[in-house]
């Protein structure tokens, strides 16, 4: 257990945490502002990955195709979510949580089938651009370049989110709406459009996560189920509705996983979940302040 392997393990764990953070921040944002436990969030992540695949292949599977896919795929997801919000969600915000839970679960099943109809059941694959292929040597161990790229993208997204929530008007309104939506409406703000914007931004992040993960995995049906369970655990331990809680939760999840793999590879799957149990025993409402 030398320094090289420990540090690579930390870095690959952190890079996974970045993807989890991007997806979970979106989920948590929607949870906070809209109070909707969106189970279909994972499906939007999957659509992001499939959309990235389509855009990438239409552009001749080139490096520039990848960069364009990274920008366009989340926008596709944002568009899908805008339609879903205006057509469906906006009529349901007043319903109780159980109804919303069932509704988003149904939406997940519908989106799954739509994905199957659109892209078929085959596995799809996106190539990382040339510059991000292969690995670099760090501390005497090799680290995939793509993981380093994720380590740069994650903090950038976090900074943008912070600026958005704290510095823009719509961000401030959505924070206010998260605390007291009636009051926001009472001061003359069109809450309906604030909710739509918040929902679309949350889903955009799901799509971005999907597009970012696309080159590292096989894109297929079922990837939504994998992420949604982890995502809900993460937002729960972080504090429901708190974006920075999602960041803390993702870091705990990603790093315990990668160190678990190093320390006790046969039972590595247990580690992140054990961490979740410990956090919930000590702080049942999550690590950071929950808006719920």
């Amino acid at each position, binding site marked *: 257990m030398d320094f090289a392997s420990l540090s690579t393990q930390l870095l690959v764990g952190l890079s996974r945490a970045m993807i989890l953070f991007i997806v979970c921040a979106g989920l948590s944002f929607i949870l906070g502002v809209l109070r909707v436990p969106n189970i279909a969030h994972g499906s939007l992540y999957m659509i992001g990955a499939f959309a990235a695949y389509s855009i990438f292949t239409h552009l001749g599977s080139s490096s520039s195709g990848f960069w364009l896919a990274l920008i366009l795929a989340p926008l596709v997801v944002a568009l899908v979510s805008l339609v879903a919000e205006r057509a469906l969600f906006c009529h349901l915000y007043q319903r109780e949580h159980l109804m919303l839970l069932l509704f988003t679960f149904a939406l997940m099943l519908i989106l799954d089938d739509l994905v199957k109809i659109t892209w078929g059941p085959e596995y799809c694959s996106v190539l990382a651009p040339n510059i991000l292929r292969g690995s670099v040597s760090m501390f005497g161990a090799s680290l995939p370049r793509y993981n380093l790229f994720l380590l740069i993208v994650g903090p950038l997204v976090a900074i943008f989110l912070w600026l958005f929530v704290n510095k823009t008007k719509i961000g401030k309104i959505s924070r206010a709406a998260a605390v007291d939506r009636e009051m926001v409406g009472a001061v003359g703000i069109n809450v309906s459009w604030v909710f739509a914007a918040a929902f679309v931004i949350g889903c955009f992040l799901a799509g971005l996560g999907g597009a970012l993960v696309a080159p*590292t995995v*096989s894109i297929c049906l079922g990837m939504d189920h994998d992420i949604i369970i982890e995502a809900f655990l993460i937002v729960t331990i972080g504090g429901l509705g708190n974006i920075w809680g999602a960041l803390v939760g993702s870091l705990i999840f990603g790093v315990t996983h*990668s160190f678990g793999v190093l320390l006790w590879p046969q039972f590595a799957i247990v580690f992140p979940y054990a961490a979740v149990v410990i956090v919930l025993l000590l702080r049942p409402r999550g690590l950071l302040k929950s808006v719920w």
Partner: protein
Amino acid sequence: MVLKIFIIAILPLATAALFFSSCKKAPKIERPIKVGIIDCYSGPPAVYAKDALNGFKLALNEINKEGVLGTKIEYTTRDTKFKVDIGLSMAKELVMREKVDLLVGTISSSVALAVSDYCKGEKVPFMVWISKSERITGEKGHRYVFSTGENTAMAGKAGGVALAKKPYTKYWIAGDDYEYGHAIADAAWRNLKKLKPEVELLGQSWWKVGEPDLIPYITAILAAKPEAVIFCTGGRSMTNVMKAIKATGMAEKVAIWIHTATDHAVLKPLGPEAPEGVMGTMDYHFYYPDTPANKEFVKAFKEAYGEPPGFPAFHGYITAHFIAEAFKKAGTLDREKFIDALEGLKIASPVGEIEMRACDHQAVLPMYLGVTKKVPEYDFIISTDIVTLTGDEVMPTCEEIKKAREK
């Protein structure tokens, strides 16, 4: 006059006698032979199921041109949706309502085992063509179940036999934490240890099926510095494993063996991201063996379906031929006689003669060990330096099967 009467009287009698005697030699079957196919035609496994069905259809076109016992082979398909209960009810429906002569399927080992159990009770022949659990023709085998595909025992033994010839002694085992992964690992390690007792297992990693992020596993394995790694993975995890191997440059640091890593269905979608230098075993390649029989099969398949056949297509193809030949040999549609005829039956196939082993009803298939490599002829990575491991080399012996079944 007498002669004329004689001829008039005798001739019809003679023709009638001739007709009846010829009937006795080759009895005319009035109805078509019905094959019921249950497989998963929805979700990701559908790709494999459709490939197998295409191979089967291609063979039927050839077979039905001349017919079997003066009739044709027909088939009906049912979707199992990869679920045991649905698969089982579809099998029952085919046997009871459609009155099929035999069942064929499926990609899911759990469905195959459940249907096999049902067929044992109903005394209906069942031919398994894709699913790879060694229990189908091993410990859970019986008179009514056959397998025309390879299984985990064969795959693992092929890996063990192949690796025993290499100089490595320090091993690591990693794979998907489900039956297929563990079955391959057990068979590979058992055989490797038997052939080369000095090998040492440094450790194991098991991840949940479909685990999206395998990089931490790979970096942890590399940190333990094994000489060779046995990956036991399939399906969508296979792509993730191959991508992670490529991203970490793992194949340049340690030797890697993965069953089916050399499968075209795995390598093609990966394109240039498929790692080179990975050892893989496979029971069928459309580009190997480079024989006229295989070329002809590939050409016919490409003309019919636009792409080269995968391993399920090969299994579907030989399944149809096994069925046809067995009915021809049996001379009747009787199920028991069909089984007797199928036992030990040898058919010609694209990869040479294949026997249906009588002791366990497992088709004796060769295994091709190769290394992934980029070659100028193709724009995808293929298996090169292929060594053929014969069926006898990679299959458990009849005594081992007997012992497993007695347990």
